[in-house]
């Protein structure tokens, strides 16, 4: 576990995983997604006991609609920033599009899925992951596609007169069904079935993974969690690009506390939202 920490004596080293841009984008997604779910779910489950009560708290249907549309604008901002970043990444040849470090799914992901199930059942070693695991790739692309679909249909319903000036009215029927179901799917994926567990709940990260907020994680954690990327970088001599001394100074402590508080609040909010989602399914 301690391999690598002795590279520079006396200095705690970290692996820098996310740039300021990506962390900023994650904040945008996170805040807007929470806002959208909290103001949209009561509409979907209008007959639930909590729906009307909750709508009252956030200013009725009109207040909720205002928050929902404002948050949608933030959500669009993330989407266009990310698309712009990807376009720039490809155009400026900032790095390979395919390959071990890429977010693009490849053959190894399929092998990793099978490998993980073997590991779950005690029939093999845990797969050695690259920079992004298959569930992280799923999270990323599902979110991007979901944002496009929910955002697009949301805009259609935001401006129904404009939409039907060039599309038949049934397009709004499709938009409603798609928006509502894709949103429900996304809420389930983020809060219950994929994202929250794979980011914070899985044994390697439990109880919280700060990396998306701080940008870096302890080197030993990195090596254990992404051994394939570590080996590739060791072999290619590119470890220096991502390993650096842990940030020090009074602000890091404040930041760390803020991140812990933020994570706990987020977890509570997510749990609450999860209850809102599950409640009507049970009763």
């Amino acid at each position, binding site marked *: 576990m301690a391999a690598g920490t002795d590279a520079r004596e006396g200095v705690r080293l970290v692996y820098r995983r996310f740039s300021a841009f990506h962390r900023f984008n994650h904040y945008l997604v996170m805040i807007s997604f929470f806002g959208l779910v909290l103001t949209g779910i009561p509409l979907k489950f*209008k007959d639930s006991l909590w729906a009307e009560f909750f709508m009252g708290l956030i200013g009725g249907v009109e207040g909720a609609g205002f928050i929902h549309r404002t948050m949608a604008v933030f959500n669009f901002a993330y989407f266009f920033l990310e698309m712009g970043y990807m376009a720039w990444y490809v155009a400026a040849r900032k790095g390979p599009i395919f390959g071990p470090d890429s977010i693009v799914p490849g053959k190894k992901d399929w092998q990793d899925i099978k490998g993980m199930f073997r*590991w779950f059942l005690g029939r093999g070693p845990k797969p050695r992951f690259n920079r992004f695991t298959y569930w992280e790739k799923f999270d990323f692309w599902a979110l991007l596609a979901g944002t496009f679909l929910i955002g697009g249909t949301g805009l259609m319903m935001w401006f129904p007169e404009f939409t039907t000036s060039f599309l038949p009215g049934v397009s709004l029927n499709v938009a409603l069904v798609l928006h509502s179901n894709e949103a429900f799917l996304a809420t389930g994926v983020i809060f219950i079935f994929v994202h929250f*567990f794979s980011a914070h709940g899985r044994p390697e990260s439990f109880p919280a993974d700060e990396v998306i907020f701080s940008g870096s994680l302890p080197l030993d954690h990195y090596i254990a969690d992404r051994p394939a990327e570590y080996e590739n970088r060791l072999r290619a001599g590119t470890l220096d690009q991502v390993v650096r001394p842990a940030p020090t100074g009074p602000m890091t402590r404040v930041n760390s506390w803020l991140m812990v508080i933020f994570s706990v609040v987020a977890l509570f909010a997510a749990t609450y939202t999860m209850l809102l989602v599950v409640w009507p399914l049970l009763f």
Partner: protein
Amino acid sequence: MKEEILKTVAGAAGGLAKEFTCLRRWAGLGSLAIVLLVLLSGEVAWAQESAQPAEADQNGCLVCHGQEYLGAVEVDGAARDLFVRPQAYEDSAHGLLPCNSCHIGFTHDNPHQMVTNAEFFAETAREACRNCHADQFEMYQQSYHGELSRGAVAGGIQAPGCIDCHGMHQVQRVDTLEYRQDIQEICGQCHGGREQTFLDTYHGKAITLGREASATCVDCHGSHFILPTSNPMSTLSEANHLETCRNCHPDAEEGFTTFLVHIQPTSTDAPLVVFAVAVFYISMIVVVFAFGGIHTLLYIYRGLKNGLYFGKGGHH
């Protein structure tokens, strides 16, 4: 429906009157006799009700009819509730009107011997609303519901009259949020299914959750002068549909009117594209949640088994 109700009531009332005029029949018709149940409410309740007589109750109707247990057994043996909650009536849109502004010709003679025949009662009830709401009554007469009520439409379908949509003693202003929320259920009593599909649209969700400005059944279909959409004069006829939408959506174009309010996306009656999207998503949700759920549970199982959560393998 209205006709029948009126007939029943009038028949009963006429019957009641007869009971009183032909005292000889009392014994033979004992089981069908009127039973006045001014009962048991006790000194306290009596005092409370009496202390706050409804302002409009100039004739003292509520002295008896404000008693919760007042009822009668009609000639056909049916129990009839004759109780009018004074507070509810006072809070209604008609709360300041004397009872006999609708119950025309009723006096405090016990038991209201003015009502001697069915015709009189039916006519009175019909006229009661018309006396003040002549315009609405006239529109109703010309509407599909009005046609039905006169038996002008074949098929013997029961038609709603004024009170079926507006209620009686608790009649509300139609522009209150409560009434606008209730109207869906009121229409749904006869137009079942249509109510549910409407409630699943944004209009339906918004009105359910208290957005008063959201459209309800009557905002599109009309109210007193309601007609089938096939009738050119209907608010939703081909000629009028866009104008109706533009009441709230002034920028709407022709395409706007082809939005389908009354469809159930998971029904095969829905347009294919809507049905396909709905079925696709239901399948997606099931598959993704099932795979994600199984993956998560197995991950937790392996984590616990290998001591990764609370053992040496943990990193935090």
